[in-house]
């Protein structure tokens, strides 16, 4: 993942795009990657448990939040992490295709 991202960043950096556009691209990539985390994690959070917290706010604590995320991240085998890495890799490949389309080689 880092190698793919590094490659994209180098292509953008070396391109003739105005600095403002480069900055916007970096910002978009950064926000986009972070925005993919929750949809992946949510897949691993039991709906009923989340619903229980949402319907009984008094049960929401920092500890319960951390437990929720820890479990969702896949305490046993980190499957969520693997999923996330795969998702981000796929998206970065697609971003690379867009850059190629705009001659950002």
């Amino acid at each position, binding site marked *: *993942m*880092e190698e793919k*991202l*590094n490659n994209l*960043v*180098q292509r953008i*950096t*070396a391109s003739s*795009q105005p600095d403002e*556009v480069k900055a*916007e*691209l*970096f910002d*978009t*990539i*950064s*926000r*986009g*990657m*972070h*925005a*993919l*985390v*929750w*949809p*992946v994690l*949510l*897949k691993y*959070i039991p*709906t009923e448990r*989340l*619903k229980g*917290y*949402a319907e009984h*706010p*008094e049960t*929401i604590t*920092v*500890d319960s*939040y*951390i437990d929720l*995320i*820890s479990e969702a*991240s*896949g*305490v046993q*085998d*980190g499957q*969520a*992490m*693997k999923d*996330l*890495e795969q*998702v981000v890799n*796929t998206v970065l490949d*697609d*971003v690379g295709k*867009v850059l190629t389309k*705009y001659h*950002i080689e």
Partner: protein
Amino acid sequence: MAEAGIVNETETQTERPPVVAEVEQVFADKQEELNQALEPEKLSIYRQYRKEFQEHVLANMTEEEQGKIRTRLADFRNKLGAGYRDASIRVKDLVRNTTSLPYVLFGKGWPKGENYEHEIARAKAWGDLTDARMRMRLEERKAYQDSTLATFIKGTGKWALAGGVFGAIPGGVAAIPAAAVGAAVGGTAEVAYSKAQRVVDKIFGPPISVAR
């Protein structure tokens, strides 16, 4: 683009350069695809949970409780960082930066007390550290270049004296601008690499340590 993976219905699209808009669309499409794959209503339940978390836990937190939350989050981050050997450090950074909800909320209504100042200072320190690392890399590479250049000049000087190809350069090897040779040896590439690496670091977000 929506925050934390949630579609924001109120967000308005401003005019963007086409390449930026298309890159944004790539992420939006993937996000939508992932959201669609979730169980029905899960997204709205999560939104409700998040709202309640903000209103019931974060908004009413005392200074003392803010201190405690940092300790708990430190444990959580360490746990994430230490586990899952198959996952890359960068993926862990992504998850850690994104799921530390209280940190996401800094500057968005979070009480700007002691911890807020600490967080700002930490972010600044991270930026300074990144700059320092880049400078260090450049200095190391420059020392290497200087060393290589010295060897290069020494060697070619001998060839020039022997009537080799460099002997044809008016004024000999000494006439070659040192900067030009340095760039040829790799100086320019190093600057590009360091800049790119720095951007990559920023994209992933600061490596977070919540130890106080």
